[in-house]
């Protein structure tokens, strides 16, 4: 869709000169002037966006790379260059290993479960139901809610005394099972994960429904006539047709999983102890509670690297399977 160079070079420009005081007077009819006018306007148009983007995104990104190679404490004038020792330190840091392990659990379950739920629900809706608009809207609603609110309401659901989970368990005589779901090391991470899955599966439903609109119905009907059962139809006919979108939605969830912060911070702050700590919450603590700006930056680079590797390797694996 390149539309450059399609402008007629003989166009006579009678309108505003964007830089009335600039040179080039008298040469307005020439194509080169047209080009240079475009260049000048382009610069003007790009400056505001570029300025904000460079100052608050690009510059801090490269600063992180630099800071990760120093032992800066956030206060001192001097930023001592320490090479890769922050990165070395991470591998000996038990909390980092714990956070990494939790992150892996989070990424795997937090990707697989919403994608499977989303796949089932979107195919159900697509196969024709009454009130499809209702279901679609309801399922998608949690995705637009602020995670602070999601975290708060799930804290109530998990409330040790009054929460519906424990009440329901007590009600059916399983009071031995009920517990402080967010307060016990063994369950905290999974309890938060369920809240996060609640908040994200609707995104998968929505994206997959859009993809399913493009599935060729005649192939599905043909398979039905040939005697394929519902599983065979889904697996062999429908899934291959939405595979690219499925890959895309999976990698989006995958990448997000390494940056998860809000919902964990709100619900458990990584606790109790480090039982629900992930790399992002640990980076936050290192950088802002312990003032380890250098070490925190190295951790931040680790998050960046992991999300990148996860996305690339997933897409790569998918491509190779074809």
């Amino acid at each position: 869709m390149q539309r450059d160079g399609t402008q007629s070079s003989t166009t006579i420009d009678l309108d505003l000169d964007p830089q009335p005081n600039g040179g080039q007077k008298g040469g307005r009819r020439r194509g080169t002037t047209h080009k240079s006018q475009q260049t000048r306007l382009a610069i003007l148009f790009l400056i505001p966006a570029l300025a904000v983007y460079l100052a608050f995104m690009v510059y801090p990104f490269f600063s992180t790379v630099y800071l990760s190679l120093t032992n800066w404490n956030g206060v001192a004038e001097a930023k001592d260059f320490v090479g890769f020792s922050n990165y070395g330190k991470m591998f000996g840091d038990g909390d980092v290993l714990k956070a990494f392990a939790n992150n892996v659990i989070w990424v795997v379950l937090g990707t697989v479960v919403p994608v499977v739920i989303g796949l089932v629900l979107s195919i159900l809706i697509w196969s024709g139901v009454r009130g499809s608009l209702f279901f679609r809207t309801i399922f998608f609603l949690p995705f637009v809610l602020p995670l602070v609110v999601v975290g708060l309401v799930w804290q109530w659901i998990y409330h040790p005394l009054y929460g519906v989970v424990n009440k329901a368990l007590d009600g059916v005589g399983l009071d031995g099972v009920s517990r402080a779901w967010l307060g016990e090391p063994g369950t905290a991470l999974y309890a938060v994960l369920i809240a996060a899955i609640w908040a994200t599966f609707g995104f998968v439903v929505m994206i997959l429904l859009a993809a399913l609109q493009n599935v060729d119905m005649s192939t599905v009907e043909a398979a039905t006539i040939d005697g394929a059962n519902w599983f065979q139809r889904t697996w062999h006919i429908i899934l291959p047709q939405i595979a690219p979108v499925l890959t895309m939605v999976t990698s989006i969830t995958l990448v997000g999983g390494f940056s998860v912060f809000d919902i964990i911070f709100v619900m458990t702050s990584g606790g109790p102890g480090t039982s629900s700590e992930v790399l992002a919450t640990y980076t936050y603590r290192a950088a802002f509670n312990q003032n380890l700006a250098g070490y925190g930056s190295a951790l931040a680079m680790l998050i960046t690297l992991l999300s990148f590797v996860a996305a690339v390797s997933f897409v790569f694996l998918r491509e190779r399977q074809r």
Partner: protein
Amino acid sequence: MAYRLFGTFTKYLVLGVFALLVLYPLLLIVSTSLKDPLDVTADPFTLFSSFNPINFLDAWTLGGFAGFFWNTVIITGLTLAGVVAFSVLAGYALARFSFPGKNVVFLAFILGLMIPFFSVMIPLFYELKALNLLGTKAAVILPAMAGVTGFGIPLGVFLMRSFFLDLPEDLADAARVDGCGELGVFWRVMLPLSAPGVAVLAVLTFFQTWNVFILPLLYMPGSENQTLATGLYLFASGRTAETELAAAGSLIMVLPVVIFFLIFQRQFVKGLTAGAFK
């Protein structure tokens, strides 16, 4: 569509169960926000056991949610205006002008979509501090515009560029023949046509900015500029937090989101799928 995959009963059972799972937490917020304080101490989470709408007034005034609300409105409004204005300009330049280095600039913006927040979080804090912006609304607006927590200018440039690329060149040529300069083509012809693209970008930016938590948490610590996200978090985790007021505050935060979502669902879905399918 007469395509039958599962039995009808199973189908509605599965969909119904998930609809209930989604609806219960939402009802819980509404129910708790309407509880009588006495009822809350006895049994906070039984659905709709009392009706005390005065909670909203208390949250608004005593809870401080009025301040949080207006701060959020201002921050969201300014971020939205900035993202839309700057993205329209930059997207237009990248779609419709020819100039050297064009592809490099576009690529630079697109890379921003892949940078996680944590890889800018720490230096950004010290940068805002050095600029004396820490604690001010600009400490959230500027990073949000730059897209550090997703969307923002990188997504805006991407969306607006592809939108302007799809507009027919004939329109611009016709305007040029009628005597419009490049600025006139942009202002009088292309900009009015960009409304649908702008709507998509504005809707996405609204949700993102209204909900954002980590930016005000980090860059407006202890200030009077708290947004609904951090205000609610601090209120709910405070020692004397009244659950019914926290619920009312949650609803104050959620209601605009839900209303906007129901009105602009199409633009929202379009924006997300456009970002996702390309």
